[in-house]
C-alpha cells in the first residue's frame, strides 16, 4: 500500500515567480514526514507538487524529478488523475462538498471511479469513517449534509473521503490550522493510526505538532521575500528538534526567527 516518494531537483514556479528551488528529499513508506518552515517558504508548494495539484493554478509549473516507487509522476504518458488517486490530499480548511450528504462525501471518490454497487459503497464508507475516527459520531446521520458538522468533524470527514479511495500516500496541508486544540489532538491521534498503512506528508506551522506526530522532519526556508524556498535540513525529527546540524534550523525551532 504505502509507497516511497523521491524528489530530486524539484523547482516550482507560479508564472515568472520561482517558489521553490532544487528540493531533494526521500520520504520512506509508512512514515509521517513533517514539512516545517516560515510562511512563504514553499512547503505547501512542494506538497502540492507531489500530487500535481500545483499545476491546477494558472501559470504554475514544476521542473525536476518526482517519483513514487520509481515511477516518474511528471512523465508525459502519466495520467494526472491516476497520480491524484494514488496520492490523496487533505487541505488546510475542511472542504466537504456542500451539496452532498456525509455518506455521499465519503464515497465521492469511489463514485468517480465508477463504483456503483451500494453494498461496496456502504462497506467502504463505514471503513473509511471508522479509520477517520468519525464513525461513532455520524453513523446515525449519514444522510445529513456534511457541512453541518463541526470544523474538526468536517476535517475528519475530508480525511475519510481521502482514504476511502485507498491512496498510497496522503498529503496534509496544515490540516489542523483551522481547528481547535481538541479536534487537533483527534487528528494527530488519527495520523498515528494511519501511518500503519499510508505514507503521510504533513505541512505544519506548529512545531510541537511536527515533533509529536512525525518520524522525519524537513525544514524549508527562504533568504528573503521574493527568493525561492530551499530545503535547509532533512533528518529524523528527534535530531532536528534536539540537535539540528544547521544554524538556521536551530534558530527557527528555538524561535529566534520566522
Amino acid at each position, binding site marked *: 500500500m504505502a509507497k516511497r516518494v523521491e524528489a530530486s531537483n524539484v523547482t516550482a514556479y507560479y508564472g515568472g515567480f520561482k517558489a521553490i528551488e532544487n528540493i531533494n528529499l526521500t520520504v520512506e513508506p509508512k512514515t509521517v514526514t513533517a514539512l516545517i518552515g516560515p510562511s512563504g517558504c514553499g512547503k505547501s508548494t512542494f506538497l502540492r507538487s507531489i500530487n500535481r495539484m500545483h499545476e*491546477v493554478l494558472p501559470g504554475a509549473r514544476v521542473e525536476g524529478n518526482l517519483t513514487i516507487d520509481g515511477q516518474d509522476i511528471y512523465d508525459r504518458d502519466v495520467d494526472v488523475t491516476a*497520480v491524484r488517486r494514488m496520492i490523496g490530499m487533505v487541505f488546510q480548511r475542511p472542504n466537504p462538498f456542500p451539496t452532498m450528504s456525509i455518506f455521499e462525501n465519503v464515497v465521492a*471518490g469511489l463514485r468517480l471511479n465508477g463504483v456503483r454497487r451500494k453494498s461496496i459503497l456502504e462497506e467502504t464508507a463505514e471503513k473509511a469513517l471508522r479509520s477517520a475516527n468519525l464513525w461513532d459520531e455520524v453513523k446515525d446521520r449519514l444522510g445529513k449534509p456534511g457541512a453541518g458538522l463541526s470544523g474538526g468533524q468536517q476535517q475528519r470527514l475530508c480525511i475519510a473521503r481521502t482514504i476511502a479511495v485507498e491512496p498510497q500516500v496522503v498529503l496534509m496541508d496544515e490540516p489542523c490550522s483551522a481547528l481547535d486544540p481538541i479536534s487537533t489532538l483527534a487528528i494527530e491521534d488519527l495520523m498515528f493510526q494511519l501511518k500503519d498503512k499510508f505514507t503521510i506528508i504533513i505541512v505544519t506551522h506548529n512545531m510541537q505538532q511536527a515533533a509529536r506526530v512525525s518520524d522525519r522532519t524537513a525544514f524549508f526556508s527562504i533568504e528573503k521575500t521574493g527568493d525561492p524556498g530551499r530545503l535547509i535540513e532533512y533528518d529524523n525529527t528527534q535530531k532536528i528538534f534536539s540537535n539540528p546540524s544547521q544554524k538556521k534550523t536551530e534558530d527557527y525551532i528555538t524561535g529566534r526567527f520566522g
Partner: protein
Amino acid sequence: MGDTPHRSAHAGTGGTPVAMSHERPAGASARVAERSGNPGRPGGDLGGGGGLPRARAFGAERAFRGLTLAAGTTVLVIIAAIAIFLIAKAVPALRANTESFWTFEGWFPNDNPPKFGIGALAFGTVLSSLLALLMAVPVALGIALYLSHYAPRRLGNGLGFVIDLLAAVPSVVFGLWGRDYFAGPVADLSAWLNTYFGWIPIFGDGPYGSSILLGSLVLAIMVLPIVTSLSREVFRQTPTANEEAALALGATRWEMIRTAVLPYGRPGVVAAVMLGLGRALGETIALALTLGSTYAISFNILQSGGNSIAANIANRFAEANDTGRGALIASGLVLFAITLIVNITARAIIYRRREFTESAA
C-alpha cells in the same frame, strides 16, 4: 465564499430573517434592541452622570425609519395596484365578450358583439418560450462553463464581458434582425426539416416565414446572453476548495465540474433559467416582429403564424377601441398571472435550496 460578508452583515444589524424575535413595540425598548449589536453595553450607557436621556418619540431616527418603511411598502402597493387596475379595466371587456375567453380562437374585440379568446395566444406564448429555452439553455450552460472553467482566464473574462453587453442589447434590435435577416435562413431550414422530417407532426407544411420556429429561435438568441451571464457568475463562485477537493480525488475536469461546480451552482442556474423563461414569456417586440399573428392553436412550428399574448398586445393596440383595450388588458392579466406563477415557483426553489448550500460555504 461569497456568502460570508453577507452573513456578517446580517449579524451586525440583526438582519432580516434571523432576528424575528427582535420585534418590539415602539418606544424606549426599541432603542435598546438597536444597540444589542454592541456587546458589553446592554443599556447603551452614553453620556456619563445623571439619568439616561429618554428616547424621543418623534426624532430624526423615527422619521427616517418611517420614510424607508414607506418606500418599502410602495413595492407591495404597486404589485397590488397592478392586479387591481388590470382587473378593473379587464372586467367590463370580459363581460361584453360573447365567446368563451379561454377557448375561442380569434380576436375581434372591436366588433359588435365583441368576440375574443386567449387560448391560442397563451398557447403560442408558452410554446415559443419553452422552445426557446429548450434551445438556449444547453448552449448557454455550455458557454458559461466554457467561460468559467475551460477558456484561459483572460479570454474568459473578456468574452464574459462581451456576453454581458449582449445581454443589454434591446429586444427591438433582435426583433428587427430576426425579421429582416434571419427569416430567410430559417425558411430554408423549415423547408429542409419538412422534406426530411415531415413525418414528425411539428414539422408540418408551409408556407414558411414568420413562424413559431423563427420567433423562438430569435427568443433563444435573446435569452442566451442573459442565462449565460447569470450561470457564468454562479459557476465562477464555486469555492476553489471544493474544486480542488474533487481534483485531489483524481477527478477529470468534467468530473470535477459534475461533482463540485454543477451541484453548487444548481439553484443559481435554476434561477437563471427561470429568469430567462420570464423574459421569454413577456417578450413583446421581438415576437411582434417575427410571428405571423394568427389565432389558431397549431403544433406545426414551421408554418407562418403563431402569436403570443405580449406580441398581440403590441400589434393590436393601435386599432383598439374601449372594449379592445379592455380585452388586451385582460390578456395582459393572464400573462401577468403566468409570469407570477413561474416567478414564485422559481423563488420558492431558490429559497429552499439556499438553506442547504448556505449552511456550508
